[in-house]
């Protein structure tokens, strides 16, 4: 088992949403390569508490890369250096002895800092509430095998549905856009036969809610590179196409009512 020595951390500390933030420097003299990045922060926090200092606040839960709670900018990259990997899945073996590591919260206008490394990502929920669902009242569903779904369709839908709602795409985007997140949900639902009835209302409502909170996409592609689930930027094309169509169709259906 190998051990890393002499790690220097520069960690963002901020007491509250409206307070001034600052970098704080901490030394980690020794840490096993098997430890995860967040375990290294746990270790630091236990030390801080033992020194009667306040622990660093950061969001995390599953530590398996699936809940989307963890959210750190590590050396300026959302979720750190390892491709397709959430912060909690990052292990110290990715780093080397003597490294200096800069740790910051998500930086995005739509995600205000709550404290230290924790941000408020509630606007992502607002987008889902606007239309990121299929209306299906409990109890009224037909037999699940009634509508066959070709495997490639189910697979493509699943690829998009893998999004964990972490917000790294927003944090990585120079404009703070949420197009990858929103596109992923629209693609997940709009590709499925069950999603057709609400396809155009959904696309319109979600895109417009997204625009209320987030910046606009200018095709940098940073989102795809940062995404821990490797969601393809193609979902944005699906979203844009359906949004355009929705502007037309929704107007038509309005005139019909």
């Amino acid at each position: 088992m190998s051990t890393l020595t002499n790690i220097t951390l520069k960690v963002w500390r901020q007491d509250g949403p409206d307070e001034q933030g600052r970098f704080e420097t901490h030394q980690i003299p020794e840490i096993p390569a098997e430890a995860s990045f967040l375990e290294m922060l746990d270790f630091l926090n236990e030390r801080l508490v033992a020194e009667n200092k306040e622990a660093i606040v950061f969001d995390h839960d599953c530590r398996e890369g699936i809940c989307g709670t963890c959210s750190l900018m590590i050396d300026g990259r959302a979720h750190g250096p390892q491709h397709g990997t959430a912060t909690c899945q990052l292990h110290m073996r990715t780093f080397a002895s003597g490294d200096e590591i800069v740790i910051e919260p998500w930086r995005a206008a739509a995600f205000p800092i709550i404290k230290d490394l924790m941000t408020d990502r509630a606007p992502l929920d607002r987008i889902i509430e606007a239309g990121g669902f299929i209306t299906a009242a409990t109890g009224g569903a037909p037999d699940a095998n009634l509508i066959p779904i070709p495997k490639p369709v189910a697979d493509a839908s699943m690829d998009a549905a893998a999004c964990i709602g972490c917000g790294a795409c927003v944090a990585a985007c120079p404009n703070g856009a949420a197009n990858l997140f929103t596109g992923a949900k629209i693609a997940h639902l709009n590709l499925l036969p069950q999603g057709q009835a609400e396809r155009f209302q959904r696309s319109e409502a979600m895109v417009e809610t997204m625009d209320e909170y987030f910046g606009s996409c200018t095709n940098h592609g940073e989102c795809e590179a940062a995404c821990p689930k490797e969601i393809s930027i193609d979902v944005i094309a699906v979203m844009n196409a359906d949004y355009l169509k929705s502007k037309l169709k929704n107007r038509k259906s309005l005139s019909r009512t």
Partner: protein
Amino acid sequence: MSITLDSKIPEGPMADKWSNYIASQKLVNPANKRKFKIIVVGTGLAGASAAATLGELGYQVEAFTFHDSPRRAHSIAAQGGINAAKNYQGDGDSVHRLFYDTVKGGDFRAREANVHRLAEVSVNIIDQMVAQGVPFAREYGGMLSNRSFGGAQVSRTFYARGQTGQQLLIGAYQQLARQIGLGNVTLWNRTEMVDVVNIDGRCAGIVTRDLLNGEVTSHSAHAVVLATGGYGNAFYLSTNAMACNVTAAWRAHRRGAAFANPCYTQIHPTCIPQADDFQSKLTLMSESLRNDGRIWVPKNPDETRSPDQIPEADRDYYLERIYPSFGNLAPRDVSSRAAKRAVDAGQGVGPLKNGVYLDFADAISRLGLDVVWERYSNLFEMYERITGEDPRVVPMRIYPASHYTMGGLWVDYELQTTIPGLFCAGEANFSDHGANRLGASALMQGLSDGYFVLPYTMAPYLSEWLNKPIPDTSHEAFAAAEAEASDRFARYLATNGTRGPDHFHRELGKIIWDYCGMDRNKAGLEKALAEIPALHDEFQKDLNVTGSDTSVNQTLEKAARVDDFFELGMLMCQDALVREESCGGHFRSEHQTQEGEAKRDDENFAHVTAWEWSGDMAAPIEHREPLEYEVMKFQTRSYK
């Protein structure tokens, strides 16, 4: 409050009980539903599905979660799948068979009527989730695909790659989001329930703490649902998400809700072994891997060759050898103990010799790498990220870890606890799995409780309260509970000791794991019952919580949760001590057959033990609900 355990099992033959119940229960008419306010604590599978459905039916719902968003509960981490008696594979599955497997898998310690209902409702869950857009795995013809799971001889498990829990939770979350958007459900995120309040012998509401600013507030309602998950983190190291804790259920227990079978905990056989002392949690490798992976250890404890150099003759495929008909798919408790025996015998593998191999070499040569990769890629990748080893090349190393808790708040057939008006759903209740849960059955139970059971079974209670006002939160009972909660948090901050809550949690977890883990005995349990209060005493004197109670303070949150784990840990050991038999996940080494299998005692222990809080953590009061089997006959569980 003195407790009576009335299970309220409906009359009639087993297969008709649930339909009879639905046909004859009291209803709340649609126009009246909006007069009722219901609090749902927890937005995991059970809570989100309950809150969404109750909101859709027209009730005023308030949903609480300590997560930042309802999309994040622990449910999201479930990998393998969800069972349903659809018989889409035409391999002889039926509601009866799922019922049978679940009662047998639970080692005859579950309530038959509840299990039968679960099996009946299982088919609706799949229909519902598909209608909502859950992208379950499909065959090329477009039909739903199935796999098999431990403890079953049919393929009834539906899955979405290795992310079934994620897809189901996102499905339920989307239904909840829709209700939130429509204004039928009010969401309180980053808000932790810290107490239950009873007025005139029934549940009147809850007290919460805002995790952003420490504010303690009361909320009243006609009825409260707890869907707050399990207590597997009592062991410190477990596969549960970091935030999982017992506080909601425990605080309800302290207010009069009986806690049933706390010693029934499930140790999952396939987790990545601990690598070092810094480890904060263990990662599950889905049991579905056992469909294609073969478990083995070297025959020779002093084996030094790398696994690919060890010839067949020097390997012990111990599950296939001991349990030829179930082989690598033997149930969890059986597989876990077998792994422990191998490691205890010195045959463990890996740098710390604390694991066994789960080998895919045969599957790869039989099916081809592509097929195996298609089935398990995300698990393989996850394993490699954690261990740095590629399971396509080197066999995985696995070892059992705390995973699921069958015990929980006692509930009757209507999922009502011993506090009238307080209901409990999902992993937080004790209801359907007896002494051992089968794989892919927790997701099924959570969604069954939330979508298909509570919306019916809460109505009879609610109908009695039509047009009766709910107590105001200015009532003295709320004020007293708020003051108690505030004092408690102030006390953690004021202790000013030297050790943080994690330190105590680790120590506590070690005691519970050593003496109330996979293998229990009288002497060990008595030792734990002496060590836990001593450690709790130190906790109360030497705890150190830095920071304040006016902004986010995760150290303080943790301290309160660990405090409740101490009391729960005592009850787990107490329960394990009085259950003088082995059944399912509860293995008392005094009670085993000559081959080392669990030995049940149906004459004396065919009951649920439900504990009443007495105010003194060393002296809870024991109650029993006898388990009567109408359909199933007691039999020794054999997977040979």
